[in-house]
C-alpha cells in the first residue's frame, strides 16, 4: 500500500555511463554511478536495505542508523550507513550478514523503545514503515520495560496537520522537507537528546502550502492529515494512479477510496513532473468531491425556478435551444475536464457551426503563446537561466515552484524575476526586478541592457516562464515582454504557465478561441444579445472573469444559458439548464499539463447521483442534433480524437500515458503582440495588481471543510510607507476606488510590495475587487483613502 516513494523499478533506466563503477552487493557484481549512495544502488538492484531517514529526493542525514551495511575495508569488514556512503569501484557490500542483522534488530528495538504501540488507532497502522520493518527486520520482542516517553497526544500544528510527538522517531524527514524542499522552515527539532521533539514556533502554525507532503513521507504516524484522520484503514483502501488536475502542473498521484468514497490522494514520484510532491490544495481537495452540495440531477428552469428533471428532458431542452440558436452557440470553459471532454465539445461546437469558444476566461494569456518554441519543466530546471514573467508560482503552481526552487538552490539555475512584488522565488532569484503593471516590456528591455544580464542570457539555455500575473491589466503587456525577450534571445524557449488544470488540452483540442473571439468578446456579444445559447462547461464567469460588470452583462444577455458543473456555481444559478458533471476521480480520460504532457486520469468512484462525464453530454447532444459522432465509449472518443489530432492520439494510446505522460506540442500561430499604451497616473493613485492566492473561494477549496477557512480574505496590500501616506494602520479599513466603483477593504502593510503598487488577492471572501476592473483598461489605477 505504501505509495510514498518510487520503487527502484520505476526510475528510468540508467544509460551506459563512463563514470560507472562496479561494486559487489551480497556477492553479486552490479554497476553503479560514481558518487551514488550505496542504498540507492542497492535499491536499483532490488536489494532492500531498511531505512527511515533516507529519502531519495532529499539530502541524506544518516540519523536513524537503520541502513547500516557491512563494507569490506582495508582492516576487515566495516559497518557503514549506506545512505551516507558513496559507492566506490570494487567495493564489497553485504547487507545480510549476522552483524548487519544484529545492528538492524538493535536499532528497531531502540526505535520502538519509546514508540507507543497504539497502532490500532494510528492512521499509519497497516502502511507504516516502522511497523513493516519491525516485522521484517526487527527482533520480534522488546525488552524495554520502563515507562515510555509521554507527550500530549496529537496537537494540531496547522489546520491540516496533526503532530503526535510520542510516535515520532526523529528521522528529520518532515523538518528536512520543510527546510530543504518547501523552503518553509516552520517546524524544527526542539529540545535535546531524548527530549528532542519536532515543534513549530510557539503560536505559529505550520502554515506551509506543502505540509501534506510531510504527512506522506513521515515513516510513522507522528504526522497525520486532518482530512484523512480516522477516515479509513489502509487495508480497506483501493487505489489507482492518476494525475492531479487542480492546476496545470499535472502532478502524478494515486487516488484512494474506501467504500466508494474518496479518502486520500498521495503524490507519486514522477521524475519529469512532481518528484512525489504535491501542494496541499491538490492533495486535500478530494473533500469537495464528497461534498453534500454536489449537483446530482439535471435542473431545468420552469416558471423562474430551477427544478429537478430527467437527463432526457434536460438534454432535449438544450438541443432545442442549440438548434434554434443557429451558429450563435458559445462554449466557455472546458479546462476543468479531460482531453476527451474538450475534444467532444469542440466537435459539438463545430457541428453547430459555432465560432465562439474559449477554454480560458479572460484570465490567462492569448492561446497563441502555445505556438512559441516550448520548454518543459525539466528543460527549465536544467537551463542556465529562467526568466520569470509569471505570477507568484508558489501561489498558483506550487509544485513548479518547488522544482524551480530546487534547481536554483542546488543545481545552479539562475532565475531572473520580473514581478510587481516579492514572490516565493524572489529569495532564490539571481536578479529580481520590480516592475509596475504595464511596464513589463520596458523593464525587460532595461534588463537586457545590463551587460551582466545579457552575458548571463548568452551563457546557456534560456527559458521564459510566462503567465498572467495581474488580472487588472491587459495580457498584452506580458506578451510584449515575451516578445522583447525572444527578440534578444531568439533561441529561448517558453514555458507557458496557464493555471487551469487542463487548459492546454482544451485549447489544443478544439476549444481555442478564433481570432478576436475570446471569452471577453463572447461575453460582450452575449451582453449585446448575439449569443443564442451559452454553454458554461465548468466555467463560472460570475466568479472568474476579472471584469465583474462584463460577466454580469454577458450572463444576463445570453438568451439561453446551460451550465455543466459539479456544483451550483454563481453563474449556474442564472442558468436555464444545469447539468451535473462527474468530478475528478469519477471519470476516466487523459489530461494535458502546462508543458503539454498528456497523462491519464482515472475513475475511482461512482459519479455522484446521475452526473456524467462532459464528453457523454456532448456525444448525446450530437446524436440529438442528428450529427452522431458514433462514439459510445471512451475508447471510441480516443479513436476519433486520434484521427483529428494524431499527436494526441499517439500519446493517449502509449503505455507511458499511465506513467510519466507524453509531451505533445500542438502547433499554433505565433501571437502578434501589441502592447496597449499605458496611461499616466496622478501621484495619488496606486497601480492595481490583482493576483491569486493558493486558497481562495474556488469551490474545490471552499467545499473542502479543512481548507475552507484557509483563504486569507480580501485585503489591499501596500508598502508600509504608502500605508503611512494613506494614513491607515495595518488592518484598518480603507476605501479603494476608481471611476468604476468603490469598496472598503482592510489594509495590509508589507515591505514585499513596492511603493505605488497596491495588491489585492483575487476571489477572496470579502469585498470583490473585480468591481473596479474593466476589461478594456490597459492597466487599473485606484485611489486609496483612509476612512
Amino acid at each position, binding site marked *: 500500500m505504501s505509495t510514498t516513494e518510487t520503487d527502484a523499478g520505476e526510475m528510468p533506466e540508467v544509460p551506459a555511463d563512463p563514470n560507472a563503477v562496479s561494486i559487489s552487493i551480497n556477492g553479486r557484481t552490479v554497476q553503479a554511478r560514481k558518487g551514488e549512495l550505496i542504498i540507492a544502488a542497492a535499491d536499483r538492484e532490488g536489494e532492500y536495505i531498511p531505512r527511515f531517514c533516507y529519502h531519495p529526493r532529499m539530502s541524506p542525514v544518516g540519523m536513524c542508523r537503520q541502513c547500516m551495511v557491512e563494507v569490506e575495508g582495508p582492516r576487515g569488514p566495516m559497518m557503514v550507513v549506506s545512505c551516507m556512503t558513496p559507492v566506490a569501484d570494487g567495493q564489497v557490500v553485504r547487507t545480510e550478514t549476522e552483524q548487519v542483522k544484529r545492528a538492524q534488530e538493535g536499532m528497531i528495538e531502540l526505535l520502538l523503545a519509546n514508540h507507543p504501540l*497504539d497502532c*490500532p*488507532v494510528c492512521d499509519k497502522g497497516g502502511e507504516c514503515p516502522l511497523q513493516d520493518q519491525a516485522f521484517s527486520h526487527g527482533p520480534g520482542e522488546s525488552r524495554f520495560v520502563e515507562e515510555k516517553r509521554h507527550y500530549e497526544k496529537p496537537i494540531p500544528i496547522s489546520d491540516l496537520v496533526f503532530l503526535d510527538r510520542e510516535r515520532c522517531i526523529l528521522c528529520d524527514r518532515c523538518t528536512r522537507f520543510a527546510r530543504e524542499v518547501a523552503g518553509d522552515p516552520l517546524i524544527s527539532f526542539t529540545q535535546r537528546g531524548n527530549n528532542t521533539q519536532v515543534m513549530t514556533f510557539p503560536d505559529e502554525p505550520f502554515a506551509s502550502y506543502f505540509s501534506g507532503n510531510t504527512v506522506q513521507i513521515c515513516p510513522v504516524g507522528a504526522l497525520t492529515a486532518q482530512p484523512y484522520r*480516522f477516515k479509513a*484503514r489502509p487495508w480497506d483502501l483501493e487505489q489507482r494512479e492518476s494525475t492531479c488536475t487542480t492546476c496545470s502542473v499535472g502532478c502524478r498521484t494515486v487516488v484512494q477510496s474506501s467504500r466508494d468514497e474518496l479518502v486520500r490522494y498521495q503524490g507519486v514520484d514522477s521524475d519529469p513532473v512532481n518528484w512525489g510532491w504535491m501542494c496541499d490544495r491538490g492533495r486535500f481537495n478530494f473533500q469537495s468531491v464528497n461534498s453534500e452540495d454536489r449537483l446530482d440531477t439535471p435542473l431545468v428552469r420552469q416558471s423562474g425556478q430551477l427544478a429537478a428533471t430527467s437527463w432526457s428532458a434536460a438534454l432535449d431542452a438544450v438541443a432545442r435551444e442549440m438548434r434554434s440558436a443557429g451558429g450563435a452557440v458559445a462554449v466557455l470553459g472546458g479546462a476543468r475536464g479531460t482531453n476527451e471532454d474538450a475534444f467532444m465539445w469542440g466537435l459539438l461546437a463545430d457541428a453547430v457551426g459555432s465560432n465562439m469558444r474559449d477554454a480560458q476566461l479572460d484570465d490567462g494569456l492569448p492561446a497563441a503563446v502555445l505556438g512559441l518554441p516550448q520548454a518543459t519543466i525539466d528543460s527549465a530546471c536544467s537551463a542556465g537561466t529562467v526568466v520569470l514573467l509569471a505570477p507568484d508560482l508558489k501561489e498558483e503552481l506550487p509544485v513548479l515552484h518547488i522544482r524551480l526552487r530546487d534547481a536554483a538552490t542546488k543545481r545552479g539555475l539562475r532565475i531572473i524575476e520580473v514581478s510587481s512584488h516579492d514572490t516565493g522565488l524572489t529569495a532564490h532569484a539571481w536578479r529580481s526586478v520590480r516592475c509596475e503593471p504595464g511596464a513589463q516590456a520596458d523593464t525587460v528591455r532595461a534588463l537586457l541592457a545590463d551587460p551582466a544580464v545579457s552575458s548571463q542570457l548568452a551563457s546557456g539555455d534560456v527559458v521564459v516562464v510566462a503567465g498572467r500575473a495581474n488580472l487588472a491589466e491587459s495580457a498584452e503587456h506580458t506578451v510584449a515582454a515575451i516578445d522583447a525577450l525572444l527578440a534578444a534571445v531568439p533561441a529561448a524557449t517558453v514555458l507557458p504557465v496557464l493555471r487551469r488544470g487542463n487548459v492546454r488540452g482544451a485549447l489544443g483540442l478544439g476549444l481555442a478561441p478564433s481570432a478576436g473571439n475570446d471569452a471577453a468578446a463572447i461575453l460582450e456579444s452575449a451582453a449585446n444579445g448575439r449569443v443564442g445559447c451559452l454553454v458554461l462547461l465548468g466555467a463560472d464567469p460570475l466568479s472568474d472573469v476579472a471584469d465583474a460588470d462584463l460577466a454580469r452583462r454577458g450572463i444576463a444577455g445570453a438568451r439561453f444559458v446551460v451550465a455543466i458543473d459539479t456544483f451550483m456555481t454563481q453563474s449556474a444559478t442564472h442558468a436555464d439548464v444545469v447539468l451535473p458533471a462527474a468530478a475528478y476521480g469519477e471519470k476516466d480520460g487523459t489530461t494535458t499539463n502546462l508543458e503539454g504532457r498528456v497523462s491519464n486520469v482515472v475513475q475511482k468512484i461512482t459519479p455522484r447521483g446521475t452526473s456524467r462525464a462532459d464528453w457523454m453530454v456532448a456525444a448525446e447532444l450530437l446524436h440529438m442534433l442528428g450529427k452522431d459522432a458514433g462514439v459510445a465509449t471512451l475508447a471510441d472518443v480516443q479513436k476519433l480524437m486520434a484521427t483529428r489530432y494524431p499527436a494526441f492520439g499517439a500519446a493517449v494510446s502509449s503505455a507511458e500515458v499511465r506513467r510519466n505522460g507524453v509531451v505533445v506540442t500542438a502547433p499554433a500561430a505565433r501571437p502578434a503582440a501589441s502592447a496597449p499604451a499605458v496611461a499616466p497616473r496622478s501621484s495619488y493613485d496606486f497601480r492595481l495588481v490583482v493576483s491569486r492566492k493558493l486558497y481562495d473561494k474556488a469551490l474545490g477549496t471552499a467545499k473542502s471543510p479543512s481548507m475552507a477557512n484557509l483563504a486569507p480574505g480580501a485585503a489591499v496590500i501596500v508598502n508600509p510607507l504608502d500605508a503611512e501616506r494613506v494614513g491607515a494602520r495595518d488592518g484598518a479599513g480603507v476605501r479603494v476606488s476608481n471611476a468604476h466603483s468603490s469598496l472598503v477593504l482592510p489594509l495590509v502593510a508589507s515591505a514585499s510590495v513596492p511603493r505605488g503598487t497596491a495588491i489585492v488577492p483575487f476571489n477572496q471572501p470579502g469585498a470583490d475587487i473585480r468591481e473596479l476592473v474593466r476589461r478594456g483598461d490597459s492597466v487599473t489605477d485606484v485611489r486609496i483613502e483612509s476612512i
Partner: protein
Amino acid sequence: MGYFGGFLVTLRQHGYKNKVTTEYSGGRVFRRKNRDDKDQKIDKPERLHGRHVLNRYEDGMEKCIGCELCAGVCPAKCIYVRGRDNDPDNPTSPGERFGFVYEINYLRCIHCDMCVEACPTEAITETKLFEFSFTNRKDAIYTKDELLVGDDGKPRHLPWEDWREGEDEHTSGWMRATAPSGDATFEGTVSWSGELGYGVRAPEPDQDSRDLEDN
C-alpha cells in the same frame, strides 16, 4: 418434478419418516404446548460462538476504538466499521478514536471468531446466543446500537432473539484461541501497555498461578 412436487418434498419433512432435524431443547413446539419443564436450553459449550456484543469498561466507556482490525480480518467481510475522533470533553472511548459506525451482517457472518481474536481491546466478544432469525434483511444487519451492551454491561435483547434468564452472564466470556505473538508455547506475562488509555488486561487464565510458582 413440477411446482407441486416441490411442496411434496416439504410436506414429507413433517411426516414421521425421514426426519432430518430433531427438536432441540427450548424449541417453540414445547412452548406452544405449555410444557414448561421442557422449555429449557441445554448448557452450551464454553467456546460456542454466538452473536456478538460490543463491550464497555466499568465506567461506561466503550471499548471499541474503531480500528477496523475486526473488519480487516473478517473472512466473510460482514463487518463494517468507521472510526471518528473522540470529543475530548465528552469522549465515547478512552483515547483518540472511537467506533462511530459498527455493523455486522448476520446473513454473512460465519461466527469464526476471528474478529474477537483480532480485537486489541476486547471490545468485541461473542455471546452463546445463536437463536435468532429475521423476517427482514435489514434486521440481519446489527448496528452499533444493537450490538453495544447497556450501561449495566448487559446486551440488548432484540425482539427476535431468544434470551433466557442467566444467559447474559455468558456474553463477555472472552476466549482466545491463540497465544500472544502467535506463539502457542508462550509462557510470559501478557503485559499490556496502558498507553492507549484503555485498561490493562488481566493475565490469561492460569497464568497468575503459574507466575506465582515461578517466583
